């Protein structure tokens, strides 16, 4: 069995929101990766757009490793290509991992991480990812109605469609009132 390449998946919950990493899928190519990503990560909560990028195109480092990249003599300069930078800024529990912070231009991914560490300093980041923009495949805004909207309409998949709390409360109150409980 071949498990096919792995693609990291990023989703956006709203038009303005940042893309956030939610996990990964295996697929033969990017078209299948986007479909699989929709099937696995598009059910809940609602999303408006998805990105996938081959795992091999992502360079990841923790804060210690990124710090070492900026040691004197190691920093590589040069204009290079555009890299998107994602970070994890908190140990708080969440469904999502690294979040889009911005972009830098650099000759390679490691240089991009080093530059990002110097650029995005407003909050401490525990994990850093750099992905070349050219490695990312995206859904279109046209795709919302066909790919993502149907999931939001299936209300029978929501816990809110089931009123077990009020059912139990009524039953318990009725039984303490001495009323016989049962279907007519």
């Amino acid at each position: 069995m071949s498990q096919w390449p792995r693609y990291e998946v990023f989703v956006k919950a709203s038009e303005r929101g940042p893309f956030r990493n939610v996990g990964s899928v295996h697929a033969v190519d990017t078209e299948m990766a986007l479909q699989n990503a929709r099937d696995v990560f598009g059910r809940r909560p609602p999303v408006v757009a998805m990105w996938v990028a081959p795992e091999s195109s992502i360079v990841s480092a923790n804060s210690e490793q990124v710090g070492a990249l900026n040691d004197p003599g190691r920093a590589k300069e040069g204009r290079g290509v555009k890299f998107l930078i994602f970070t994890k800024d908190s140990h708080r529990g969440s469904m999502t991992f690294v979040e889009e912070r911005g972009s830098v231009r650099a000759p390679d991914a490691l240089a991009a991480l080093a530059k990002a560490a110097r650029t995005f300093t407003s909050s401490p980041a525990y994990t850093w990812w750099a992905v070349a923009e050219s490695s990312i495949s995206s859904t279109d805004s046209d795709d919302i109605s066909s790919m993502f909207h149907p999931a939001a309409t299936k209300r029978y998949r929501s816990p809110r469609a089931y009123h077990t709390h009020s059912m139990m409360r009524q039953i318990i109150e009725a039984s303490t009132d001495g009323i016989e409980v049962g279907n007519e």
Partner: protein
Amino acid sequence: MSERVESKAQLAAFQARIDRGERIESDDWMPDKYRKQLIRMISQHAHSEIVGMLPEGAWITRAPNLRRKLVLLAKVQDEAGHGQYLYHAAETLGATREEMVELLHEGKAKYANVFNYPTPSWADVSVIGWLVDGAAIVNQTMLAKASYGPYSRAMVRICAEEGFHKKQGQEMVIQYALGTPFQKEMVQGAIDRWWWPTLMMFGLPDSESHHSVQLMKWGVKTKSNDELRQDFVNELVPELHAIGLSVPDPDLRFDEASGNWLIGEIDWDEFWRVVSGDGPLNKERLSARRAAHDDGLWVRDALEAYAARKEGSPA
């Protein structure tokens, strides 16, 4: 494979991170044993989700009405997705999909015992939703605080979805318990079948659970098996009684002093029998998984052929 010497300093620093409540991510240093235990635990959790599609999946074609069918389809699809989140989490630790699935198919990896039992009536579907998914929520709510980032995130996402599973089941059980004599008898029969297998989902008693001690030290588990089991029993018993259903435990009693519903002895012989492969449907579950994999080969081949042809075609 190179020898890894784990210094006392490294282990102490790691433990300090755990104690500070920091999340460990895949780039971070971790003891070899932490990595291996998590791969085992997470992959077996993933296998449980996938195998867990089978007992209820059997009723999709026989659901009593369209709405029940839609709800059941959605639930079973969710379980497939949960398996995917968990396989992903195990992969961040270096496990591969091939290895994990091979171990399952060879009978070398475990999955939750509870899925080795049959579902002879429609009411079993309702009871699985309330009891089995309800028990999973108790366990997974705790695991959402686990120290390993990808596992914790998978648990948070799964917990959010599991609420629907439990409530759709509970709503049906309530309806049947308060329904016709036939419905009430059907659902009581299902409770009688699923009560003890559900309690066994929480694992061995604390006194015999060897993995738990290390897992608690490393912040993967934060409550013991017996604590979680007691939480679950305290939640379910009053609600079952309120709708006129009984629990198949002649020794069940309420202890005023602790406020706990105390249960009788769990039959651990049965647990070991089923875990080691001698349960009602162990063979059927595994052959269903192997068949799905083997019979699905043409789909994987077709997808590869399609992608190759696309790549070869002119822009």
